[in-house]
């Protein structure tokens, strides 16, 4: 069993816990006793926060709509389609015909380069997220 320090994925409290793993499987969480936010405690959501990680519903392959259906596709092809279509649309309709929604659930680093991509790579300030909701 291994323990890895993490931050609860749910509300804005930011409780710290250790993810308990057995090989590649998460088997539980254990609240950080020293962290001043939660001091060894968690709520019902926090204690159970790991279960969805191994849900059979997780997406495991890129999907591309082909003939109306979302179809499993290799990464290379999916990424080329994303960048190709975004750049074609930008060329034809200008950068402000594109928009980007960042996430209140991913890391700071990911949000930072997401907005950097929107602004530096595609040239638009059409960047927002769902914090209002």
């Amino acid at each position, binding site marked *: 069993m291994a323990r890895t320090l993490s931050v609860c994925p749910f509300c804005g409290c930011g409780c710290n816990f250790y993810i308990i793993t057995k090989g590649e499987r998460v088997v539980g969480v254990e609240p950080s006793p020293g962290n001043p936010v939660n001091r060894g405690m968690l709520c019902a*959501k926090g204690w159970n926060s790991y279960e969805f990680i191994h849900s059979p519903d997780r997406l495991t392959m*890129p999907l591309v709509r082909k003939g109306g259906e979302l179809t499993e596709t290799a990464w290379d092809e999916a990424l080329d389609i994303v960048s190709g279509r*975004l750049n074609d649309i930008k060329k034809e309709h200008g950068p402000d015909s594109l928009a980007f*929604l960042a996430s*209140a*659930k991913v890391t700071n*680093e990911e*949000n930072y380069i997401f907005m950097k991509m929107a602004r*530096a790579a595609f040239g638009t300030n059409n960047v927002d997220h769902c*914090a209002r909701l």
Partner: protein
Amino acid sequence: MAGLAAAFGSGAMTNSIAEVEEAELFFITGTNTTAQHPLIGTRIINAKERGAKIILADPRKIQLADYADIHLRHNIGTDVALLNGIMNIIIEEDIYDREYVEERTENFDQLKAVVSRYTPRVVEQITGVRASDLEEAARAYATTKKAMLLYAMGITQHATGTDNVKTCANLAMLTGHVGRPSTGVNPLRGQNNVQGACDMGGLPNVFSGYQQVANEEVRKKFERAWGVENLDGKVGLTITKMMAAAQKGDLKALYIMGENPMLSDPDSSHIELALSNLDFLVVQDIFMSETARLADVVLPATSFAEKSGTYTNTERKVQIAHKAIDPPGSARDDWEIICEVSERSGYPMNYNSTRDILKEINELTPSYAGITYERLVKGYGLQWPCLTDEHPGTPYLHKDKFTKGLGSFLPCDFKPVSEVPDEEYDFLLTTGRVYYHFHTGTMTRRISILDREAPEPLVEINPDDARRLGIQNNDVVELISRRGSIKAKAEVTDRVPKRVVFSTFHFHEAPVNLLTNPVFDPISGIPEYKGCAVRVRRCA
């Protein structure tokens, strides 16, 4: 956020979670804290057990009502009138902090002129709150030294949300309750990295650290660092404007990372029309959400357990999380996917890890300059602003002066909800969450224990109304608004006042946002989730 930024110069929670336990009084409004921020809720209850007072202003009888010394059950959407009424009493009885007002604030005369119209009698008529309760609350809040004001989306999710926030800020400044420990104006954030998404510039008007895109010097700095020319200085579209532009055909492509606007946005049938009208929709997520189903390309991302990086909690504290396991199948970290798309679009980013990215954030974001990887792995996080490697971080803001200098009183007048009940739609629907679920339920509904406790959507209805309509517990009822209808089981409870029904947005089977009214606060762009007119019908 916009309201607080205008008043104080910063839109974040002014104080810290740890300070909650030291507070002597709480003014809690529009936050069901024990359900939504349980570890903050626990601290409030601990403080109460040690003698702290609780003033709760909430139309619903939430769990904290059991602990409250005073429960002001004002009518939905009458927050400005309620708070103005409290200030009216505080000024009238001369128990405001005169020295603080003179030294640290501006526009007091304007505030005084506006709130003078909100006498206890006028306020009682608008809000339904008895004058004597209002007076008791006003005196207690004004005369307690460590008085902490907490709020969340019950304040912001109104067409007048910015006015509501400004009015909370007015009240706290009037009584000198900003700039000391265990005081302040504290918006509680609902998702684990909302604060970080804002801090990192996931907004149409700012780069990271709220550096304005309209400021040429700021743009020059980012142009140099990023190796590009001509960054756009024009403010971009908010999410609600994006949806409108998509529907009109002006917006052609949307790239959504880890969000589910199909369930979380108001008037969802219009959202579906907007998203379907795009030429190209990319959704990057861990599950096939209602939004991902509409996409042209779906990219599988990693969950929190499969990646390393930092998150910023509601008290501005940046904390680090480490990767515990490998992702399922060929799912990849969001940051790696973004780097790939960017590189293929002719703008390579060249990061090897999130640690590299954090270093760049430190270099370009003054409030995050001292929040380095090396310091984060050693301690329990750092609160911004943290300006240098030696800076200890900032547990509470606006200590000797406000971020913007003088704090500004920004008085507002009461405006009713946009859609007032009438004969046809005779109830007000207000929406929220339950303890066991999170947001649109994509994660918590896949957790067996949580789903066991709250397996299905419920509509709360007052016993008086239920009797009149022949509705009993667990009867299926239909809620009908001008925009759509949903069916769910009734829970007959006096948690809701008469002529009000409550439901949540966790359940795709009864998507409450089919009903909600897409009117928005003109400044923050937040929709009015907390009040729209509906009709209630018992299904045979």
